């Protein structure tokens, strides 16, 4: 049924349709309406599992870890600093090969204090062993949850999945979202059948100490599981499309690529703005297209190289920066082309940090100037130099 609904509420309803046994979350800033709506649904007995309010994100993640090792399907949501506070537990969950779905409302990280939209939080966890999927709009955000559980719980994968949706721009905005029925979701997503779980009758240990004689082998298995997830993500996405008729790309998605000379690469809600910009630029005869990255972990090197190998210019829009190395998506895309016979000109642009709007003008200016710039390190776009000068002047008065 199509509903006019806030992004957070759509995700909360989608999560309840997935029948988790345990939801645990920290209810205070930084958090989104996802958890508020879930606790409301719990109070109204619309969600029949356990809802565990805790005193920190570290505890929320720990409760989820504990729940999953007992064989439960668990869920949590967080954002910004909260994700960083969870991080130790999240690395453990991946290493212990525990299925989980976590929604990350992508927001900035302090300092300075700022919890508005960007990808710094999820990007900091890119090496954790979580599968990372990025939504373009609220329909995709909701749909990713049904798929995420199925991917996460697949026997050849058994890895936690982070569903990423831009904070505020998606979580707090209203859009029409098609919500499936409980029966449809049940047909798509079978109950979780864990291979191993804690049971006093069959005692086992999760999270053992493993020394130098075995640690590398266990981590190698983790790497292999991530590779296995390519096939599972593809299978689940196709099953979802067959059942619900919706698809937003598997590893990547494209827009107006047919004759494109310049391609903009991005993740998250900015993809919508870029599509608008492309329509405007194409009306002026500029041959520009879009490649959206939906699956960031595992990093879909092959799909990206296949998509971009015959393109002249590639503009990568990063909403986060690895301080000291620059745009993260851009760096990985450049690295994907190493050893390839044809390589596009790839430039990296860091935009929209800490909630700064990325407008159509931002995009068209980057495309317009692209021919004039050489291949260079990541550039911060639309910096306010007057602001920086005023800051320096102000410091002298203190």
């Amino acid at each position, binding site marked *: 049924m199509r509903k006019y609904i806030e992004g957070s509420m759509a995700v909360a309803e989608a999560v309840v349709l997935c029948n988790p046994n345990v939801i645990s979350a920290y209810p205070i800033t930084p958090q989104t309406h996802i958890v508020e709506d879930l606790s409301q649904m719990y109070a109204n007995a619309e969600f029949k599992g356990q809802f565990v309010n805790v005193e920190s994100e570290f505890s929320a993640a720990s409760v989820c870890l504990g729940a999953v090792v007992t064989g439960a399907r668990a869920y949590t949501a967080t954002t910004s600093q909260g994700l960083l506070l969870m991080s130790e537990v999240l690395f453990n969950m991946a*290493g*212990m*090969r*525990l299925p989980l779905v976590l929604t990350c409302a992508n927001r900035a990280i302090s300092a300075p204090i700022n919890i508005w939209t960007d990808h710094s939080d999820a990007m900091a966890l890119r090496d954790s062993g979580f599968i990372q999927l990025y939504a373009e709009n609220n329909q995709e955000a909701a749909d990713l949850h049904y798929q995420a559980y199925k991917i996460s719980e697949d026997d050849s994968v*058994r890895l936690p999945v982070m569903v990423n949706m831009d904070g505020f721009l998606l979580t707090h905005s209203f859009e029409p979202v098609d919500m499936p029925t409980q029966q449809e979701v049940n047909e798509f997503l079978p109950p979780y059948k864990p291979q*191993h779980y804690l049971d006093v009758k069959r*005692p*086992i*240990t*999760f*999270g*053992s*100490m*493993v*020394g*130098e*004689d*075995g640690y590398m*082998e*266990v981590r190698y*298995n*983790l790497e292999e*599981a991530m590779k296995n997830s390519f096939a599972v993500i593809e299978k689940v996405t196709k099953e979802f499309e067959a059942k619900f008729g919706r698809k937003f790309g598997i590893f990547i998605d494209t827009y107006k690529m047919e004759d494109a000379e310049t391609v903009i690469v991005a993740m998250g809600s900015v993809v919508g703005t870029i599509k608008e910009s492309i329509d405007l630029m194409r009306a002026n005869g500029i041959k520009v297209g879009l490649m959206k990255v939906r699956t960031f972990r595992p990093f879909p090197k092959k799909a990206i190289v296949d998509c971009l190998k015959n393109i002249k210019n590639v503009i990568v829009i990063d909403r986060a920066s690895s301080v000291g190395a620059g745009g993260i998506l851009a760096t990985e895309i450049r690295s994907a082309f190493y050893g390839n016979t044809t390589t596009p000109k790839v430039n990296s642009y860091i935009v929209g940090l800490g909630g700064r709007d990325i407008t159509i003008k931002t995009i068209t200016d980057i495309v317009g100037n692209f021919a004039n710039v050489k291949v260079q390190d990541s550039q911060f776009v639309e910096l306010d130099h007057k602001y920086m000068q005023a800051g320096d002047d102000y410091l002298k008065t203190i």
Partner: protein
Amino acid sequence: MSLNHGAILKPGSSRNNKTGNWRNIRPVYKHDKCTGCTMCERICPEGVIFQEDKKKFNVDLDYCKGCGICAEECPVKDIDMVPEEK
């Protein structure tokens, strides 16, 4: 060591998985001035020191991590910590 994905293990795995291999120094009993006070046995954090006779203790080197607390606390200094050499 037998390990499956995610290092999930059945109980009793410590019997097979020796944990003493990262030790740098190991305790060596002189069996000279021991008074049989049982201090070393009591304070060993790994619980791998065992009483063999009234005034004779020994250590299970499969699991001893070489922390040296036994030698430090022995009231009559009857334990030496000796470097592991290969």
